[in-house]
């Protein structure tokens, strides 16, 4: 008898992704191209699954990140907050190939936080009096108008961490953290791609960003592209 939290470290991206199936809802960490689980994202295409619903703030950009899935034709629906200049998504939305559900960014994060925390629904002020209200229950509390939003669960989460120990305790790097921790809490199966893999006890208990309770498979990927979107700099004095 073995629980879900034994022997999480797997040897390859393919092994990590073996449980993926057609039609799954996949939560993919990252904000733009920062904090992307690059190897897992590539691996899903090799895995050959399709008809995926992806939940991602941006669903790729500049032909990179989740734009690879869009181009590979394995995505049925995207739940995101921002398309911007992600032309791979614009064209497939326009053609009707992919359904796009746009959600305010904070509501997207909070819906997954709710899913991970066992909250089926919550009221939020974001979107009150806008098109986001359409079809949703509204209610006033203390004279202000709120919408009822539902928890957003994933079958799988693909998460990029800076450091993981063998139980899956995670640390993230700077703004690569973004949606990664909250998505890890909201999926039935959370798969982590880490830059650094360390032994149990290497992380001080107070230095863990996300407990390994939310992690089910870990693959160590030392090399990443970490693509820039806008490389803004100043001159050295």
């Amino acid at each position, binding site marked *: 008898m073995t629980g879900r939290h034994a022997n999480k470290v797997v040897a390859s991206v393919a092994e990590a992704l073996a449980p993926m199936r057609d039609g799954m809802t996949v939560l993919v960490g990252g904000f733009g191209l920062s904090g992307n689980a690059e190897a897992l994202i590539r691996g899903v295409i090799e895995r050959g699954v399709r008809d995926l619903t992806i939940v991602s703030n941006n669903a790729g950009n500049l032909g990179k990140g989740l734009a690879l899935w869009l181009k590979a034709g394995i995505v049925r629906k995207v739940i995101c907050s921002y398309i911007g200049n992600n032309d791979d998504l614009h064209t497939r939305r326009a053609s009707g190939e992919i359904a796009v559900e746009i959600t305010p960014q904070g509501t997207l994060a909070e819906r997954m936080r709710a899913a991970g925390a066992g*909250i089926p629904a919550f009221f939020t002020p974001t979107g009150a009096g806008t098109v986001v209200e359409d079809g949703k229950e509204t209610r006033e509390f203390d004279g202000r108008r709120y919408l009822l939003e539902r928890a957003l669960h994933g079958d799988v989460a693909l998460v990029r961490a800076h450091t993981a120990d063998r139980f899956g305790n995670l640390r993230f790097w700077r703004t690569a953290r973004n949606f990664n921790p909250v998505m890890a809490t909201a999926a039935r199966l959370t798969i982590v791609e880490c830059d650094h893999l360390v032994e149990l006890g290497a992380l001080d208990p107070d230095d863990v960003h996300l407990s390994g309770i939310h992690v089910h498979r870990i693959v160590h990927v030392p090399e990443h592209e970490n693509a820039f979107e806008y490389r803004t700099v100043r001159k050295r004095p």
Partner: protein
Amino acid sequence: MTTAPEPTLWSTADMARRAAREIPAGAIVNLGIGLPTQVGDYLPDGHAWLHSENGLLGIGPFPYEGDEDPNLINAGKQTITVVPGGATFDSAASFAMIRGGHIDLAILGAMQVSAAGDLANWAVPGGKIMGIGGAMDLASGCRHVIAMMQHVTKKNEHKLVRTCDYPLTAARVVTLVITDLGVFQPTGDGFRVVELAPGVSRDYAQARTGAPLG
């Protein structure tokens, strides 16, 4: 008329040892205050991850004398240690883990368990209110709940019952009951006998149970 010999009931240590067998390797487990905390003594090192709702996953053994830290305690406010791989977090994150179904198993003390799996473990009718603590969150949030208790009260009242008359902690959540008489599974109509302590007959157990044993 012959009198059946009195059976040897399980000690609390026996019950804790038996409960430990229900814990799979690599499970995330919350052990309630009191008797359930003892279950940890019967788990091999590194077998499972013990969660403390005040903000720790990875409870280790009690500290060596002199190493006690009043700011490193379990939910029963006992001084503890952290195992390698343990991590701390705040109460909101801790109860998000519980409510969100991320804890595989809670082993909780009980006052009454009904045939439907209802749990009553936080208040005695007419008694002093001690409070709820994390009991309701654990009972309703964890994927499985094992209740551990003496089979009858000190006044020989039934505690495995058709319907709880003590205030509920959560409804239809207990999947297994471990008592000094054995191991029982709520079935809706009664309790299935999974195992009996040495020398405990089915009749002996039935006489002490407020619902049919199956």
